[in-house]
């Protein structure tokens, strides 16, 4: 959790982001660097092209690093429903990123099983936020 760039995004159908969290910020009181946030979102958005290109080349859900921008790397994970889990980081090991995606996918499945979940709306559950932060803390310590 000491890295300067660690942003997690779930991209739904039609490429709409339905969940975003800055895992590098410590809590709500953390001062966000707006410029970095803009850059991270720009990079994540631009990485969607690479994800769409590489998801057909692999049979695995975990696509590893799909795009790079300077020191930033974008790792991707495609769910069975076609949702894209993107993580922007500055060079985390592929194994820890893979574990992170697997654990987040598991709790995101529980969110999707909620009968009131709408895949076109944003996920606003604070419990989901907390769990994602906990998973990130355990894998990117």
């Amino acid at each position: 959790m000491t890295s300067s760039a660690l942003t997690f995004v779930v991209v739904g159908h039609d490429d709409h982001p339905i969940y975003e969290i800055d895992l590098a910020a410590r809590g709500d009181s953390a001062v966000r660097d707006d410029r970095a946030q803009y850059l991270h979102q720009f990079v994540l958005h631009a990485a969607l092209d690479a994800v769409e290109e590489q998801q057909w080349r692999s049979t695995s859900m975990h696509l590893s690093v799909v795009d790079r921008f300077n020191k930033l790397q974008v790792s991707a994970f495609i769910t069975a429903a076609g949702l894209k889990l993107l993580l922007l980081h500055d060079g985390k090991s592929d194994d820890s990123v893979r574990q992170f995606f697997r654990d987040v996918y598991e709790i995101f499945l529980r969110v999707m099983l909620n009968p009131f979940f709408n895949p076109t709306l944003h996920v606003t559950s604070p419990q989901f936020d907390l769990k994602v932060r906990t998973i990130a803390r355990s894998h990117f310590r």
Partner: protein
Amino acid sequence: MDAYPAEIVTPPLALMALLGCPELHAQMHEYLRSHHKPPINSVGVANPLDVGRVFGERKSPLAAGQPAGILKADWFAKHRQRRPAVAVLLIPRAEVEGAPDAWQRVSAQVGAVRGATRAQGARLVLVITSGSSAAGAGHVEGPVQEERVSTLCRQGGIERRWVATLAAGEGEAGLRRVARLLHEAAGQFYLDDSRRRLTLHNERRNPPADLNARVAFKAAALSEFRGDWSTAVRSYEAAYREIAKAAHAPGSAGLQRFFEIAAVAELMHLKVIMLLLHQQNTARALAQFKDHLKLLKKKEAQPSFFQNGAVQAAIKRRKLGETLRNSPSKASLPPGGSVGPGAFVGQLVMTQPGGAGGPSVRKLSDAEFLAHLEAKECSTDHGALAVQCLQRAEEFAEAAREQCHYSALVATEHRLAGNPAIAKPLLESIAGVYRREGWRVPLSGVLQELRLCSKALDLTQDVVAAALELCVLQDRLDIGLRSALAAEAALFLAGAQQSLAFTIDDSDAHPLHGCFALTWGFEDAESSPAESSEQQGTGEPGPRFVTALWSNVPCSLHVTSVQVAFITSRGTHTATASVKPLDRGALQKPPPPSAEPQLDAWGQATEEPSDEAATAVTEASSGFLLEPGRWVVAFAQAPNPPNGKIGVQAVTLRLGQGSSSISWPLATAKPDTAMIGAVADNMEAVLAPLARLAATQGIKVEAGAASLELPPSQSPPQLRVEALGYAIAGEKVAKQLSAGGAKRMRAWVDVPVKGQLHISACLTSTSDEGETLTAEASLEVTVERPFQVATHTSGPARTSTLLLPISALPETTDAPLLADRLPVGQACLLSVDLTITAPAPVVIMSVALEPPVGVESSAVQVLQSLGTVSGGTGAPVTLSKGEAHTARFVIRADSACTAALVGEVAVTWKRPKPARRRASSSMLPKRSSRLISSPRASLMSPNALPSVPQLTQQLSQQQPQLSHRRSSSLTHTPTAAAMTHQMAVNQLLEDLPEDIPGAGMHPPPQPVTTKVPLPRITFAEPGIVATSSWPASVRTGEAFTLDIGIANRTQGLQRVQVAVGDTSGFVFAGDRRRMLALQPQSSTHCNLQVVAHASGPLPLPQLRLTAPAHDSFLDILAGHTMVVLPSPISHVAAA
């Protein structure tokens, strides 16, 4: 490559010195330069005795130690232009074989040339010319005396083979022979020179890396001179390795030293990649590129990708330039001094005017070097450089979203460079992409840039639009910034200096879609409160229009008025809506006439008006405040439509002093109460306000279009009322009136579009004793809609079009909302889907498309009716609730038109078997007959029985009250005389047979024709037309071609990306993404080789055609399937 001098980027040519016989110089120079391969450069010296100034003196060998520089800046130019490899002495034959004085002169010349070339090691070639032009071609003289030739060779120190003869009669053949000899001599010179330098260098002890690099570089250049390209590449690579060592050697940390090494490395890198690419050795060239970038990586991490690195470097350099320009303390160079390139590559020297000895030249100190760099950076146009670099990166970017990223950076640089007019369209295009894909953080960044550009261009409307869109991005910007943006927008909207007009359509991609939300509908006529008719005064009132408004803008907006434009067959009518409280008490007790319209907050609808509301009421004399996070409901009284049909064209908010407006065009919106816009993410607010209106106030709201029907026809009072269990909108429902089973009559009643149909009757009878009794009976029938109609249009089969905006057509306020778009001049498909909503089956007899009412000539032609889907042959089809029926029509428009009227769908249907309902039956949920014994009437005499017209009037006045009463069963049967008297005057009643109970309650179902207006359709000229073709059927494993034809019908260059998406069931060869550039008025084809690996009806691969410039895309093959037959392999195996 234009930045490098020509001697670097062109292959070097050997240089010859032509001595003597100046009349031959031009001819030989021309031949050597233009006809010989490879070309040879030459310089001419008329007097061979002056040859010393051409070759010069040899320099002394370099002493050990650190050289002054790595590579002389003019070394290449010197060897290409000033240092000949061969001295060609042209000697007339007459002088060789002539008188002794002539021979002595020749000997002196040979000696002088030998002496001059010895220092540089240049080769000497003697050419003995003979004959003259008068001798003519083909004239050949005898051989030269061999004794004289041997003497000349001895004097020149050359072998016999370096002596050639050139006779005038030989022509080009002689020149070719001499040129070949000269080329061989030059090659010998460059080879010997290279060996000499290497031998000399090998004798040095521990030479520095700089010197190694220099020697290797010169050896490589000399190899290039003689055309030995492989050796040249090896030597250049060796030189580059040496310079890399020098870069990492101790002592290279100085800034000037680093600059010199970088310049030399750049030169060597350039030579290496040029030769490698010329040899088509791309892999080594790429490796060299990586090595070069790795070498120049000084202290910061180098970007992984070249374009990203270039972009970041350009932006950082621009920022550095700005910092330097704005720096208060700037270093300065000594007065009078000028900085220029030094003698070595990458070195700068200071030239200062001196005294009598002339100007002094010295190396720069580190401080002076920094001052020079600072001055140079300050004079550079970094903005233009950054834009140029970013545009290059944008061109190289293959992915559309990456291009978006670079375009945003380009736009920012344009704005910073003072070109907001160029930046604004770029930003608008990018904002559309981010808005459509819902990426709000990049969108907010782009919107902030867009707002700054609009402000710089003084475009107030765009500034306000950007501010409004920005201020509703809740979780992206601080509340303080959002409030400031909203206040700025509110100030502009409230001001009278400029009239701002915003139109919000139902597209999700509209910029202001997230700022406001609006729902609308027509109030059900039966549920409308009495005050609606009171507002109209005398005459029949029209329906009331209800609209609810929501604002996400984090500040209050002052709304002057809410105007609603209605459209009827008579034309357009505008009414001003009133904002009213919605609590039940206020509805039952209309506010006093002096009361002003009030704001309403839905969350506090049942509470007492707060102080805030009271303040709003006070302010409402000049309008009201549209506050954030609260629903405001407004009512508008519509005019009474002549044909019972009315629609809403637009709802407009007049803001501030009335000069600004926000309008929602509803003319072409689908007839639904779906919300336009979005509200904040809280469930309380998301609840549909009109549904809450019905729940709390009992006001039923119809969908966006209303049909006002006359109330049920008045009928003479009877005791018993029977009707069908439910009615279907559009049909006539039979109402049977009976009096104790003695007399049965029937009336046909038109039912309203939707809601409850109240049927009531009153019977006044007089007994033989003169007692007057009044019986009232009522019945409530639920009116159901027969079906829902949905229409959708599609372009021509297997043809998809990217329609460009209709710029030629003027914008009209009548129909600004575009329902759909179709291409002009092509047969398009219009599908009408009927989904049965009635509880019982409905027989659909026919579906026809009729021209629009009141329009003489419609722009849209109905070419053909393709029949129905469910019925097949067009025969009547019986459908139950939930089943669908589709009719298809082929339509075409020959000219572009906006929101053209298509017409009406006329659906003829009937009931197959109506249900029966009796009001007196205990099985019915509602029994509506009632008997009231009036004591007052019992005192009346028979003469006091009211006449029939009075009774009818009385019924019509009682009708609203009866609908709210709960009635009891009939207990009294009137006399037959009284009944006969009253029924005879009502021409609507039909007599029914008395002996058959229930006769007439099941009349043969009558066909009903329901007409539904179709939404308007826009026809536009297609800018880009894509046509696809594929075989009708293939076999598994059999390759076939999917041909995509793309035609550009515009007058500009169009870039189209063809992207292949999901290819389930198929495999294909080739790239998934292709970018095509279509010239104006041209077409191209894009073929995909596809192989099916599954059988059955398979959906074709997803193929998306994107026109980034127009921010639009098409899924060409969406919905198309292909029949794939199984492979006949099993059959072959059996045989």
